[in-house]
C-alpha cells in the first residue's frame, strides 16, 4: 500500500469515527448514559446542539445540528466516492468557482436568517450544509496527499542529513 493510499485510508477512518460519534451519542443515551453525555460534551464546543435544529435518531437528537450533520456525513460520502472518480495521486484541483458554490448557499442561508429576512428550515440547513460537505473533499484530498508526501520527503532528507553527519 502506497503512502497516498495510507493517507487516504487514515482520513476516511478518522471522518468515519467522527460521524460514528455523532450517531452513537443518541443511540447510547438509554444503555450507556455516561458515554452518551461524554460524546455530547465532545461535540458541544463545535455546535449549538439546539434540539429544534437537529436531526433525531433513537428518540434523541444527534450530537450536532442538522447543518453540521449534513456537512460531516456528505463529507464522508464524498471521501468514499472520491477514488471512483479521481486517482488519489491526481494533483490538479477543481476550479475555484466550486468553492463559491459550496460556501455560497450556506452563507446566504445563515445571513438571511440572521437578518430576519428568511427563516432557515431543517431542509435549507441540510441542503446548504450538504453541498459544502460534498464539494470540499475534492479540494482537501489532493492538497493533503501532496502535503503528507512533501513532509515525508522533508523528514527523510533531514534524517539522511542527520545520519550523514553522524557518520562523519
Amino acid at each position, binding site marked *: 500500500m*502506497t*503512502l*497516498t493510499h495510507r493517507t487516504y485510508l487514515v482520513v476516511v477512518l478518522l471522518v468515519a469515527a467522527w460521524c460514528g460519534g455523532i450517531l452513537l451519542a443518541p443511540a447510547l443515551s438509554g444503555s450507556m448514559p455516561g458515554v452518551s453525555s461524554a460524546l455530547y*460534551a*465532545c461535540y458541544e*464546543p*463545535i*455546535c*449549538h446542539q*439546539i434540539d*429544534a*435544529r437537529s436531526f433525531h435518531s433513537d428518540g434523541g437528537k444527534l450530537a*450536532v445540528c442538522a*447543518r*453540521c450533520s449534513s*456537512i460531516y456525513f456528505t463529507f464522508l460520502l464524498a471521501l468514499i466516492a472520491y477514488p471512483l472518480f479521481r486517482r488519489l*495521486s491526481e*494533483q490538479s*484541483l477543481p476550479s*475555484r468557482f466550486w*468553492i463559491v458554490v459550496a460556501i455560497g448557499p450556506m452563507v446566504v442561508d*445563515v445571513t438571511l*436568517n*440572521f*437578518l*430576519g429576512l428568511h427563516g432557515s428550515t431543517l431542509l435549507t440547513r441540510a441542503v446548504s*450544509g450538504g453541498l459544502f460537505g460534498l464539494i*470540499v473533499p475534492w*479540494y*482537501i484530498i489532493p*492538497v*493533503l*496527499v*501532496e*502535503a*503528507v*508526501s*512533501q*513532509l515525508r*520527503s*522533508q523528514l527523510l532528507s533531514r534524517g539522511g542529513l542527520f545520519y550523514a553527519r553522524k557518520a562523519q
Partner: protein
Amino acid sequence: MLEKPSKLRIALISGTVIGAVSSIPGISLINCCCCAGVWLGGVLALYLYKKQLTEEMPQLESSDALMLGLMAGVIGAFTATIINVLILFTLGPVEAELVKSIAEKVLDRLVEQGSMTTDMVDLMKEQIDQSIRDAGNLSNIFGSLFIALIVYPIFTILGALLGFAIFRRKTPPPTTVSP
C-alpha cells in the same frame, strides 16, 4: 534564493485571533456553525503566510499549509483557554453578573428589533451562564483545553488546506506524488 519566513510568527497571530474569537462570549457563537471561527483561522494563517512570500522565496507548498494549520490550531487552543480563564478571573462573580445583565438587556433589544431569533438569544444567554458557572473550576478548564487541543488543530488544518486551494497560483507546475 531567500528562505521562507518563519511559520511560528504567523501561527501566533492566527492562533491569537482564533483564541479571541472562540472565547469572547457572543463572538464565540461563530463556532456553533461547524467551528467556522477555527477553520477560518486556518484560512487566515495561510493567507498571512502567502502575503509574506516574495518572488525570491520558494513557492508556497501544501506541506506549509499543513504545518501552519497544525501550529495555529494548537496555539489557538491554548490562547482560547487562557483568554477564557483571564475573562473569568478578571471579571469575578459580581462583575460577571453585571456584565450578564447588561448583555441580556442588549440581546432582548435585538430580539425586539427582529435582528435575532429567540433561540439564538437563548443560546447566547446560556453561553454567558455557562462561562460564569465554569469560573475557577480547574477540571472544566483542563477538560475544555483537552477537547480544544484535539478539535482545533483538525479544523485549522482543514482551513489551511482549503486556503491553499483558494490562494494557490492559477497555473501551478505539474506535480506527481511519489508512491
